[in-house]
């Protein structure tokens, strides 16, 4: 029998229903694993042991009463960007180090209602700004595959924790690749849904026109289970889409024969690590064996996406983060001389260097006289990029490429050079600009490190992506690869 931390959500749910173990036992098993392994990984910033055991007891009551759903009693972790009532929610920042959220994010509420047990909160880049988890106020997360390397970011804690089997699954958010890139670097499956599919209410805002929450799991099947509970209309998010949620789990076993997959030419050009390219080709061969038809396709303007993103995201972040004023919540400086001094010093002390850089770039791009040259221009580029995708999806059902140009890089390797860090998201950003769904799933290892295969779907085609990933995971074992020692 496999160990509890190796089982899928469906297996655990069946085991709970059969009384093989209780949610309390399952919860203690994972709390123990966190205590044992996380000293080195630093993936969990807040352990909510008391709340977790109470939630597990309630789950066990529901299971006993025959009121359980597919997620009842399953222990997961939430990225520390989601507000959790009564539990510290710091978003990786000194600014919120003293913040106990007075309310729950909709994602948290929905998963609570489904009976999920929250073990704690995961480390992340400060305010989700970063691609390596090195900008966190709580220190970097280590990649369980090689603790000298980064787990990716910004959802690096969630990715590392799931890869090390410290929780069954975790939530993440993706503004420019923050679910997919760490999923790729840690060898797990991570899905960024269509913009508006999952509520942003209570998810601390970074760039509101790009932010989306999604599941980070060990398999596509687990991701489908989690997304089913996370997705859906929410009146509290003005950009939430009022449209029924597809049956993601029910679609997993659809046949993929005849599916037309576009291999994105630009994602295989210069800059792609040769080992990574070979890993993608191995995965592509498997897809052909499943009966999918692979054709080359072009997204001719995708190379403009990083530039447009670093206007849109900073501009929106400078506006969103203006709420941190040292008055209503968060860090406040000592002995302010006047109101302006209060604002300036509270923000200078509360924010780290990367967050300051992005706020300042945004403030500059939105300042008088520059709006047309920066924000308006970026929104035009964004339209061109979205049009490329629209044309591509007239030809093919799904797009394919790597999720990142290389495997996990070393801690400190890019942290002194913001621009080189930004370029680690070259394959993920265009998807956010267009608002499309995409996932990263494990491909064969490259030099002993995980490589992420990215699948991009048309709007609201999350079910198709999970179906394709699940079918590929039925005929391969890359998603079962586990870092040594965990």
């Amino acid at each position, binding site marked *: 029998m496999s160990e509890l931390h190796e089982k899928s959500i469906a297996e655990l749910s069946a085991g709970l229903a059969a009384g093989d173990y209780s949610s309390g036992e399952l919860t203690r098993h994972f709390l123990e694993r966190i205590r044992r392994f996380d000293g080195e990984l630093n993936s969990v910033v807040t352990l909510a042991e008391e709340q977790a055991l109470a939630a597990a007891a309630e789950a066990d009551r529901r299971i006993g009463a025959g009121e359980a759903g597919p997620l009842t009693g399953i222990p997961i972790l939430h990225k520390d960007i989601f507000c959790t009532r009564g539990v510290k929610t710091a978003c990786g920042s000194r600014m919120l180090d003293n913040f106990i959220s007075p309310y729950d994010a909709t994602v948290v509420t929905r998963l609570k209602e489904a009976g999920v047990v929250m073990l704690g909160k995961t480390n992340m880049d400060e305010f989700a700004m970063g691609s390596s988890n090195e900008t966190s106020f709580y220190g970097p997360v280590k990649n369980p595959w090689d603790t000298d390397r980064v787990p990716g970011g910004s959802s690096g804690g969630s990715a590392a924790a799931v890869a090390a089997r410290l929780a069954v699954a975790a939530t993440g958010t993706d503004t420019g690749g923050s679910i997919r890139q760490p999923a790729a670097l840690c060898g797990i499956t991570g899905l960024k849904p269509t913009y508006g599919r999952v509520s942003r209410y209570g998810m601390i805002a970074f760039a509101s026109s790009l932010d989306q929450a999604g599941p980070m799991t060990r398999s596509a099947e687990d991701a489908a289970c989690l997304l089913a509970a996370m997705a859906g209309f929410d009146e509290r998010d003005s950009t939430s*889409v009022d449209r029924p949620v597809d049956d993601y789990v029910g679609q997993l076993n659809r046949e993929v024969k005849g599916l037309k997959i576009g291999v994105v030419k630009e994602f295989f050009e210069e800059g792609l690590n040769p080992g990574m390219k070979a890993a993608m080709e191995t995965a592509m061969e498997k897809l052909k064996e499943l009966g999918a038809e692979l054709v080359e396709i072009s997204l001719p303007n995708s190379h403009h996406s990083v530039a447009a993103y670093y206007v849109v995201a900073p501009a929106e972040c400078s506006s969103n983060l203006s709420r941190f004023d040292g008055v209503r919540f968060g860090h406040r400086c000592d002995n302010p001389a*006047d109101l302006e001094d209060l604002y300036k010093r509270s923000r*200078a002390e509360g924010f780290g260097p990367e967050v300051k850089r992005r706020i300042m770039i945004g403030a*500059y791009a939105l300042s008088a006289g520059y709006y047309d040259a920066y924000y308006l*221009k970026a929104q035009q*580029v964004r339209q061109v990029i979205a049009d490329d995708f629209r044309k591509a999806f007239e030809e093919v059902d799904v797009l394919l490429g790597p999720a990142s140009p290389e495997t996990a890089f070393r801690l400190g390797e890019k942290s002194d050079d913001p621009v080189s860090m930004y370029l680690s998201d070259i394959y993920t950003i265009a998807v956010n600009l267009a608002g499309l769904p995409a996932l990263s799933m494990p491909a064969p290892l490259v030099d002993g490190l995980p490589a992420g295969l990215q699948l991009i779907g048309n709007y609201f085609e999350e079910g198709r992506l999970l179906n394709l990933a699940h079918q590929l995971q039925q005929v391969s074992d890359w998603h079962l690869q586990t870092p040594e020692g965990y």
Partner: protein
Amino acid sequence: MSLDAEEVEKIAHLARIAVTADEVDALKSELSGILDLVERMGELDTSDILPMAHPLDMPQRLRPDVVTEENHRDEYQAVAPAVENGLYLVPRVIE
């Protein structure tokens, strides 16, 4: 793009972030580097392109103008740095 110290100080003021002289020095090159990256989008001719307003071309949803939230003042003020009698305290604004 090359920002000078005065420009960086002006941006920091707009962003309401206090900066030291050393930070201004580092920010000059860091922000200039980011702006160089950003300005590469100028290579794309977008003169006939309508800027994207929403990725799904959705209009903003409206709702009836009725009260939907309960009063949470005490809970919300419990996380504030300084409050008194239900009010947020800030340094004196008017002498």
